[in-house]
């Protein structure tokens, strides 16, 4: 089927196994990992798309797609349930000749050329499913079109000493890219790629097909497609972004990004600005009850909680119970966790549906300037009085 031509279609790479998030992604695709009390990581790029008036999004996934599929559903919570576009989860499927997993980021898009072609778009926006940020892709698209760019890459300024951890774009004065260096030992600039690309679809299609034909290619955007475009003299531009952005691919960065929501002037202001709301599939829960015995400081509390204990500098997600005399400090509590009376949780991430029995002790304080995050995986039960050491992964 062929639809009316679209200006831009978004493709969200959600396929990574997320092994650095360990137990949190044992049965959950990384983009479906809960964040910020009531969200999942994927709500951020999806909401950015909607707020940027991009109404067609393909989600490329191959690990644990069930939960992600259920969460996305028909896309209604994001307003992406239109019959002309909307959101679609695209797992690899068996074709008549061969069936294969997504070999790399570029190959994932290559395998879905058919999906994109249905909309015959002018441009394709490539997104990553493990970043927390608010961004107006429409402004980036406008820049891309005004520069008559073949490929525009969103970059952010990073401290020089950290630049060697990123893909660095070296640009001329007009923003055009003349060189791309993946994790350079001696960085020439501090423009780090955010893994967000806008391609002219005609150009991308041609390069995806060439890349697929090359048996030596790793089929990766950063390693293969971008260098190939550069060496063939195409127009590549860097698009500067200076808002909050965080890759939440590790336990500590996921914890930090949650903590960035707290305080009167938070590092990441999830409330504003107007027109940049983050949408999520909302749980059907009443307002939270805060008991007489409860105490809350610098914390985020979602709906459907019953709080009888002490919460300090923590994120408490939808549907959690914190018993009397329990304390939760510097921690991220994911949805539907029960923390019984007198339990103590410090510097920890507790995944969905866990039960922490009375008096259990998880994690500890920062010692010698080192914060070691303890992690309890989904639906685990920690029995009464158990002690889980700082930094332990259960």
């Amino acid at each position, binding site marked *: 089927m062929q639809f009316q031509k679209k200006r831009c279609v978004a493709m969200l790479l959600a396929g990574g196994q997320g092994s650095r998030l360990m137990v949190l992604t044992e049965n959950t695709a990384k983009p479906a990992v809960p964040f910020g*009390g009531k969200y999942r990581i994927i709500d951020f790029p999806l909401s950015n798309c909607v707020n940027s008036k991009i109404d067609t999004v393909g989600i490329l996934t191959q690990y644990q797609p069930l939960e992600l599929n259920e969460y996305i559903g028909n896309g209604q919570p994001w307003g992406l349930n239109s019959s002309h576009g909307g959101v679609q989860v695209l797992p690899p499927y068996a074709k008549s000749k061969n069936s294969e997993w997504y070999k790399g980021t570029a190959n994932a898009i290559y395998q879905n050329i058919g999906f994109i072609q249905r909309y015959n778009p002018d441009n394709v926006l490539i997104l990553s499913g493990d970043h927390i940020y608010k961004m107006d892709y429409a402004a980036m698209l406008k820049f891309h079109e005004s520069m008559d760019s073949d490929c525009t890459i969103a970059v952010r300024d990073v401290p020089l000493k950290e630049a060697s951890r990123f893909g660095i774009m070296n640009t001329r004065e007009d923003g055009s890219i003349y060189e791309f260096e993946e994790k350079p030992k001696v960085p020439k600039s501090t423009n780090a790629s955010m893994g967000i690309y806008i391609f002219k679809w005609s150009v991308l299609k041609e390069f995806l097909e060439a890349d697929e034909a090359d048996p030596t290619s790793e089929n990766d955007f950063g390693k293969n497609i971008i260098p190939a475009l550069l060496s063939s003299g195409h127009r590549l531009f860097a698009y500067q972004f200076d808002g909050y952005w965080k890759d939440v691919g590790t336990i500590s960065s996921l914890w930090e990004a949650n903590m960035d929501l707290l305080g009167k002037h938070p590092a990441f202001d999830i409330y504003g600005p107007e027109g940049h709301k983050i949408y999520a599939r909302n749980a*059907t829960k009443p307002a939270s*009850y*805060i008991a*007489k015995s409860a105490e809350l*400081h610098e914390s*985020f*509390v*979602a709906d459907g909680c019953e709080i009888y204990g002490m919460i300090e500098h923590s994120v408490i997600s939808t549907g959690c119970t914190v018993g009397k005399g329990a304390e939760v400090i510097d921690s991220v509590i994911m949805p539907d966790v029960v923390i019984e009376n007198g339990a103590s949780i410090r510097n920890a991430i507790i995944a969905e549906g866990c039960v922490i029995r009375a008096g259990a002790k998880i994690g500890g304080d920062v010692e010698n300037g080192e914060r070691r995050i303890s992690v309890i995986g989904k639906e685990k039960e920690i029995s009464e009085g158990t002690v889980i050491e700082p930094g332990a992964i259960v």
Partner: protein
Amino acid sequence: MEAMGIIFSNIYDSKMGNLTWERTSGSIPFGGRYRQIDFVLSNMSNSGIRNIGIITKYNYQSLMDHLANCEDWDLHLGENVRFLPPYATGHTGAYRGKLEALQTALPVLERSDAEYVILSDTTVLCAIDFAEVVDAHVASGCDLTVVAKAGRADGRRTQTLALKVDDSGKVVDLAVDYCAPKDYLSGMSMFVIERKKLLNIIQELVPHGKCYFERDFVLPQYNEGKLSVNVYSFQNIALFNESLQEFYENNLKLLDQDVRHSLFRTNLPIYTKVRDSVPTLFGEHGQASDCLVADGCHIFGNANHSVIFREVDLDEDTQVESSVLMQGSKVGARSQLRYVILDKNVTVKPDTRLQGTPEHPLYISKGVTV
């Protein structure tokens, strides 16, 4: 058993004071994040009712905004939910009864192939399985089933419909607008009746100037022995919001865990409009104690024994006590509120003191700055 639903969104408007100045009683906010209609509409949705008419008379803009396309209740406006506004402007003036209001539902009732109709107001809040009520109605063989609650009648408060049953459950007395003694049950303004029978009643009684369902139909026909009445005695918590005072008290009743757990059941969830608010932020010195707090709030001050709706801001050093603060209220620094109801989007300036009494909470109208 196939049943359709009819919801009256405007009943009791006149008793609710300024709460219904610009809204129907169905769209009165309740319990931190709900509107009254959420309860009956969720109950019908959860009970598998897929043909629902909502009778409106006036002021129904806010109700339509709230329900939008009804997707948040797992229903679809136009497909299985219909708004039934009055035919013409001939019915304006003082509100008249449900029987007359049902005239606007005649075409829907005629077209339906449902065997039974569930009639309900929006003012009694509970989690109820209507499928069970319909089954009980069918099993009883009676003409009309009244859902009723024991324990509310106290000899002082007027009950719209009071019923006395004997040990076998048979109705032995039935009265309308009656200060019933304790041994009477109070009708919850929820009824089940055969659709064809209801059609006959409307077509017979309304042209004869009868417009009140309880007074002009149930009472006389029961007295004349023409109507057999079955009582479905509801066992869980039901909150009757029939006056501003009761509305205030019932909001605060949600601070009781038993009331909350009876009203918000996982098997009969109460849906509401999704607003995509951010979770509530508690500041360093923000403190809530014995409070219901919805999402999207900024709590930098103190609240005690109160219900705080979505997107309310309490600035530093505020003291809020035994109050109901509706969506979007802002309370300025150092202000003190006791026994107060703030309607939506009220702004309280810094250093302001507002005080009502437990019997007469101070009500501040929607959008006002004080």
